[in-house]
């Protein structure tokens, strides 16, 4: 009974647009859904470093290399902001990381696609970070204070990610025939997976409905996807790039770009672990975690030694 009264109060707070802070009373479902969502978001930032990290040593010049290095470093930071936000809900980072490494936790399916050419680095910045920005701009207004603040910080950094990507795209699109072919092929491979980043269509997304009820999300997956398409099509036209969708056309009445059917079988196949790179990504992540062990151990040994010196 007490809980029902609290729940009613909680819902009033959400309705009034109040932000929920870590020590506030919250329903168990709210906490659970947030932990699931924030930790998946954090994992996506961390795993998301791998496809791009793959090209740092092969960047075509120093300018591109510095930009890519800085971008990938930002993604590590994003992961950290988000793990910290999740920790305010009472889960510790260690257990979240263990869930990722054991394969129990999910992350965005987009990072299970391979980066085959340098053009992919441009297209990831443009489309993948572009889609992430649409999503994170909404999440910066989410009802949970620490999550909303983490997204705000992330959004401030993302604009450079998208712009450096688009610069690569534009350069290649205005380049030689071979470069134009390479960038168009890359766009062809990434377009549909980028649209899938917004998650299942509204009618197949029970989590999304619940998150909307809790004001963690304030727009539906389909609305965000539409916003992304409307934003992105003119950017493609500006550099004479096409998207691999014969049904893509502008609807004068609605003012929106209509697009074809997404292959949801592919989406679920990749989510379930059968994407082209799922296994490689996890192996690379585990290896990085193991390779970093000595650093963590050294830092700890040093801290202990200093403490002993200090006490004597």
């Amino acid at each position, binding site marked *: 009974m007490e809980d029902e009264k609290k729940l009613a109060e909680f819902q009033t707070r959400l309705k009034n647009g109040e932000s929920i*802070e870590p*020590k*506030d*009373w919250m329903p168990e479902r709210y906490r659970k859904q947030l932990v699931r969502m924030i930790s998946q978001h954090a994992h996506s930032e961390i795993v998301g470093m791998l496809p791009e990290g793959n090209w740092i040593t092969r960047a075509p010049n120093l300018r591109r290399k510095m930009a890519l290095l*800085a971008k990938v*470093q*930002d993604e590590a*930071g994003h992961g*950290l*902001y988000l793990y*910290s936000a999740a*920790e305010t809900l009472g889960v*510790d*980072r*260690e257990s979240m*990381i*263990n869930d990722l*490494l*054991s394969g129990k936790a999910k992350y965005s399916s987009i990072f299970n696609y391979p980066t085959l050419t340098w053009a992919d680095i441009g297209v990831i910045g443009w489309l993948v970070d572009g889609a992430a920005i649409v999503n994170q701009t909404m999440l910066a207004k989410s009802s949970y204070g620490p999550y909303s*603040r*983490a997204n705000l*910080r992330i959004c401030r*950094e993302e604009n450079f990610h998208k712009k450096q990507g688009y610069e690569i795209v534009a350069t290649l699109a205005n380049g030689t025939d071979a470069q134009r072919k390479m960038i168009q092929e890359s766009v062809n491979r990434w377009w549909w997976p980028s649209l899938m980043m917004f998650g299942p269509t509204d009618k197949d997304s029970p989590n999304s409905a619940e998150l909307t009820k809790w004001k963690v999300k304030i727009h539906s997956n389909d609305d965000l996807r539409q916003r992304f398409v409307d934003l992105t099509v003119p950017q493609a036209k500006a550099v004479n790039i096409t998207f691999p969708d014969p049904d893509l056309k502008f609807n004068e009445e609605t003012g929106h770009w209509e697009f074809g059917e997404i292959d949801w079988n592919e989406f679920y196949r990749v989510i379930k672990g059968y994407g082209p790179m799922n296994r490689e990504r996890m192996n690379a992540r585990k290896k990085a*975690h193991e390779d970093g*062990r000595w650093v*963590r*151990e050294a*830092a*700890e040994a*040093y*801290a*202990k030694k*200093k*403490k002993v010196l200090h006490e004597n």
Partner: protein
Amino acid sequence: MTKTTEDQWPMWEVFLQSKQGAPHEHAGSLHAPDAEMAIQNARDVYSRRNEAISIWVVRSEDIISTSPSDAGPFFDPATDKIFRYPKFYSIPKGVRGV
């Protein structure tokens, strides 16, 4: 899953001062084995674009805060003291600079 040593690392809250004269504001938190590493990590994580000219780190467990459940009664005493504000007072018309 193998255990890392990380779970023993304490959590630190990070406060950044954005410019001269500005207050230090809470930016977020992180894990670090000691204060020195906490400061270094705070710089790398929370100030990659000159967001700070000064950083404080405080062990999270050392922070004492009010609890939201009794925030109402705790802050109540201030709500009925309108005489703490200038608009409570009236002065003769035409007098300036008071």
